[in-house]
C-alpha cells in the first residue's frame, strides 16, 4: 500500500462514521446515505492529492455527498421506478436508527437538520458550516439556535412524559 493510500485509509477509517451520520441526518435514508457517502469518499480518493490537503476534508466529503443527493433527486424525479430485481440491497437495519430522539431530529426542517449534523457530528464551527452549506454564518447561527431550541423542547417533553411531544 502506497503512502498516499495509507493516508486515505486512515482518513476513511477515522471519518466514515461521522460523515455517514451527518449525511444521514440530512437525507433520512440509511441506504441512500451509505451510497452517497461512499461515492463522496471514492471521489475524495480519486482527487486525494487535492482533498488530502483540504483544510477540512471531512467537510469536503459531506458537501460532496449532499451535492450528489441534490443531483440525484433532480434526476430521479424524471425517471421510472426500479425494476423488481433492481431493488437495492439493504445494509443497516432501520431499527438501528429508530429511536425517539432520531425521530425528533428528523422532524426538523431540512436546513436545521443539516446545520445540527455538521456542528454535532463533524464539529465544524459556524464559518465552516456556512461554507459547506453555502449560506451566511448568521443564517447558520439562526438555524442552530432554532434547532437546539426545538430539540430541547422535544427532549424535555420526552423525559417528562416518556414520549416526544
Amino acid at each position, binding site marked *: 500500500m502506497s503512502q498516499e*493510500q495509507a493516508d*486515505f*485509509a486512515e482518513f*476513511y*477509517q477515522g471519518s*466514515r*462514521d461521522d*460523515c*455517514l*451520520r451527518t449525511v*444521514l*441526518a440530512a437525507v433520512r435514508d*440509511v*441506504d441512500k446515505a*451509505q*451510497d452517497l*457517502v*461512499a*461515492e463522496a*469518499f*471514492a*471521489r*475524495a*480518493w*480519486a482527487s*486525494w492529492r487535492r482533498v488530502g490537503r483540504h483544510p477540512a476534508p471531512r467537510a469536503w466529503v459531506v458537501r460532496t455527498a449532499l451535492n450528489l443527493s441534490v443531483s440525484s433527486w433532480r*434526476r*430521479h424525479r*424524471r*425517471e*421510472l421506478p*426500479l*425494476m423488481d*430485481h*433492481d431493488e*437495492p*440491497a*439493504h*445494509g*443497516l437495519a432501520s431499527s*438501528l*436508527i429508530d*429511536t425517539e*430522539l*432520531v425521530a425528533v*431530529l428528523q422532524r426538523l426542517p431540512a436546513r436545521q437538520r443539516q446545520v*445540527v449534523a455538521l*456542528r*454535532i*457530528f463533524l464539529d465544524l464551527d459556524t464559518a465552516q458550516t456556512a461554507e459547506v452549506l453555502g449560506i451566511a454564518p448568521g443564517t447558520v447561527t439562526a438555524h442552530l439556535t432554532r434547532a*437546539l431550541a426545538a*430539540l*430541547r423542547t422535544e*427532549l*424535555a417533553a420526552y423525559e417528562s412524559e416518556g414520549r416526544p411531544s
Partner: protein
Amino acid sequence: MKDADVITAVKASYAEIHMDVPLDVIVRRGRRLRAHRRLPGLAGAAGAAAALALALAALVPGSGRATAPENSTGTGRLAAWTVVSQRDGGVKVALRGSRIRDVAGLQDKLRGDGIPARVARIGYLRPPLNVPGCQVLRDWSSGPGGISKTLWLKIFYGPHTGQQSNHAFWVYRSAIPPGLGVLVDIYYDGTFGLYTVNASPQCTGT
C-alpha cells in the same frame, strides 16, 4: 436542559450508525474515476463513434441493428442504452446518463442476441462480485487461476482493445468459452464493470 446536553443526546442516538462499505470498494471505485479522467479523449472519441454509428444505423436501413428499446429510460432524444450489432460479429453496448434504470431490458436484449448475459445494478452495499445466482470468476488481478486479461479483452473488446471508455463496451460472443457467460455491473453513476461468470439458467438464462 443545556445545549451541551442536547448535543450529547443527539450524538448518542446515532452511536450505533456505522459505515459498512469496505475500504477496498471505495478505492476501486476511486481508481475507476481516476481512470475515467485520464481518458477524456478516448471517451469522447468513443462517444462520437457511438453517436455516428447510431445515426448511420437510423438513417441507413440494414446497416446494422440499432435498438432503442421501447421501455428504456432515455429521457431525451437518445435511449439510456443502445445495443448495436457489429459487422465483425460483436455487439456494441453504449450507456448514457448516470442512472441506467432498465437493466432488465438491456439484459434481455443481450440474451436475445445470443449472449449468455446477466446485467445487474450494484451499489456500495451490493459488491460487484455478489450477484444472486451467479458465480463470478476471479480475474487476473486476483492471482493465478482466474480468467486471463487476454481472454477478458477478447470477450469484451476484441479488435477494439485500447478503446476502453466508461460508457461503451463490446461483447464478442464467439470469444466466450463454452460454459461461461458475461456479467455487466452497472455502477452508481452509469459506468460499468465487466466480469465473466459460469453460465447457468439462474445467472445468465442459459
